[in-house]
């Protein structure tokens, strides 16, 4: 009798603590800030959706510099927030450290991998999505030259560029792809002035479609494209609405869905650690088609892209992943 009672109490206590933990979700954005109209804003959208449905507020933290990332994670963990979603590869080492110190707190890291029993890592097959928009850019380009503008010069960003190049070459083997990086620090994701200069430079070299994988820097790129009357392709979130008629499409990374699912699973007690790789087959990446860019994409182009997408999913087209060997030989 006593045993049963104890077991019940323990079970109750556990269920209460689980429910309690699920009621305290938190998120740490990266330095580009939650309104970068791109990657972080995607996470923000997912959180808004979750809050609307469940009524649970998500504690948010925006670090002002790199040193604050670990501090912020640690403070949230100390206060018992769980799960804590860490947005962006820059948090990898901080999550590694903090997750070790708080084994009972669940962490979800987006865009990078940490192998610990209380960390869920979500990464995307950006090369597959970039391949699609690359193919689209090649179909739309009249000059036979397209451009890629990356943010910070890191393998993850090169992965976008490499996938894009492969997509372009798949459709038009003789097309030129100009690739530029904005910089070598985190600030490169938030420098629209440089982005617009890079875009203007690419336009002057003949590019008429540019793809920016550069967070907030992209805003400058799209503006330059709008001013010059060329086309641009957005990234991470669906950015088609920023300049209707200029934005050819967006390479959507469903970070919103990833964040939403994390909180949802945690609330239901189904949160699991480990690695999740989301590609075209899992709807983790895709190209965006909506009212804002419908007029720019012909039915023929749409059909061709659907065909390419199916081929990538079935494995008929192999898209090389830059991060697998740090080269872009395919």
């Amino acid at each position, binding site marked *: 009798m006593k045993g049963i009672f104890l077991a019940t109490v323990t079970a109750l206590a556990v269920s209460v603590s689980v429910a309690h933990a699920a009621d305290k979700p938190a998120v740490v954005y990266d330095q580009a800030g939650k*309104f970068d109209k791109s990657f972080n804003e995607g996470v923000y959208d997912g959180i808004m959706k979750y809050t609307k449905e469940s009524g649970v507020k998500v504690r948010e933290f925006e670090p002002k510099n790199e040193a604050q990332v670990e501090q912020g994670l640690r403070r949230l963990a100390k206060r018992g927030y769980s799960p804590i979603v860490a947005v962006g590869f820059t948090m990898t080492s901080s999550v590694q450290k903090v997750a070790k110190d708080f084994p009972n707190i669940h962490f979800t890291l987006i865009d990078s991998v940490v192998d610990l029993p209380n960390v869920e890592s979500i990464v995307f097959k950006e090369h597959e999505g970039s391949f699609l928009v690359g193919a689209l850019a090649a179909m739309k380009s009249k000059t036979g030259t397209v451009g890629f503008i990356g943010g910070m010069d890191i393998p993850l960003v090169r992965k976008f560029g490499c996938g894009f190049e492969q997509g372009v070459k798949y459709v038009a083997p003789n097309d030129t792809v100009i690739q530029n*990086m904005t910089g070598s620090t985190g600030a490169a994701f938030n420098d629209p002035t440089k982005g617009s*200069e890079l875009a203007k430079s690419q336009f002057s070299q003949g590019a008429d479609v540019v793809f920016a994988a550069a967070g907030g820097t992209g*805003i400058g790129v799209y503006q330059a494209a709008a001013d010059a009357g060329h086309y641009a392709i957005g990234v991470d979130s669906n950015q088609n609405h920023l300049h209707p008629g200029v934005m050819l499409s967006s390479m959507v990374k469903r970070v919103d869905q990833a964040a939403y699912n994390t909180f949802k699973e945690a609330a239901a007690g189904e949160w699991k650690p480990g690695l999740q790789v989301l590609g075209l087959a899992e709807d983790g990446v895709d190209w965006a088609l909506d009212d804002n860019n419908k007029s720019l994409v012909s039915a023929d182009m749409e059909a061709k892209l659907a065909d390419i997408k199916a081929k990538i999913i079935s494995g008929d087209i192999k898209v090389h992943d830059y991060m697998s060997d740090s080269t872009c030989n395919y």
Partner: protein
Amino acid sequence: MFDTLIIMLDATLRVSTPLILAALAGLYAERSGIVDIGLEGKILGSAFAAAAGAAVFGSAWIGLACGVLASIVLALIHGFACITHRGDHIVSGVAINTIVAGLTVTLGLDWFGMGGQTPTLSGDQRFTEITLPFADALRDVPVIGQIYSNLLSGHNIIVYLAFLMVPATYWIIYKTRFGLRLRAVGENPHAVDTAGISVAWIRYRALIVCGILCGIAGAYLSTAHNAGFLKDMSAGKGYMALAALIFGKWRPVPVLFACLLFGFLDAVAVRLQGVVIPGMGEVPVQLIEVLPYVLTVLLLAGFIGKAVAPKAVGRPYVKERA
């Protein structure tokens, strides 16, 4: 090749414009004896005010006025701390930079609810490109036509204003009574005071001019070069301008060339990326990024020679009392 050069020079003009305005602003302040490390903050503050003003009132000119006003207020705060209360110029300047970096985002969040950004500006809310007369007709004339139509024409009005400010500043500093007194206050305020001229009033006036020029530079960033305000969008231009000011030895024309050099290196950096150089392969981004700074150090060390600041710069003026 020639086309590429024209395109790079064209980019140079665009990138140098805020540097020129800010460096001239610093020139007025420092020539009067006020160290102004707060150029950065004033640019950022006015960039925000200009974008906010343009978004609300629908006119780039009203935006410019808002930006200039915000920048003058910041300059006067700096003056109040440094001139009236004889505070440390560097501390006051850094304080202004820090306050503005936080305040712009906070106000932006409150007013527009777009994460510290202002709405994207379009049409009349921005300064648009001006085509100079006959530019289209002359486009096909070799060399001269290209220079006129592609390089000189097709900028917004602030770019032309910035370049006009250089001779204007030269004239004010060297040819007017105000300029003479301004320089004197920076070198030997006691002598000026002895002549019965208020040191504080001259320095305040210098700071107001400084505020106006920084305000134009900020408005250029958010309403001409870009289309809206983003947090930290000044991205160190105030500090670059300060470096250009020292580089140009506190004189308008050399300062102009220093700014143009910085702008040109920036344009080259953008252009050189991904270019394959024989024997080296593709140039890494990092090498190109560091190029302007390395060149600055080399030029400063080897060619420019000693840069002598105005003698009384950074020192509060205290009237001697018997």
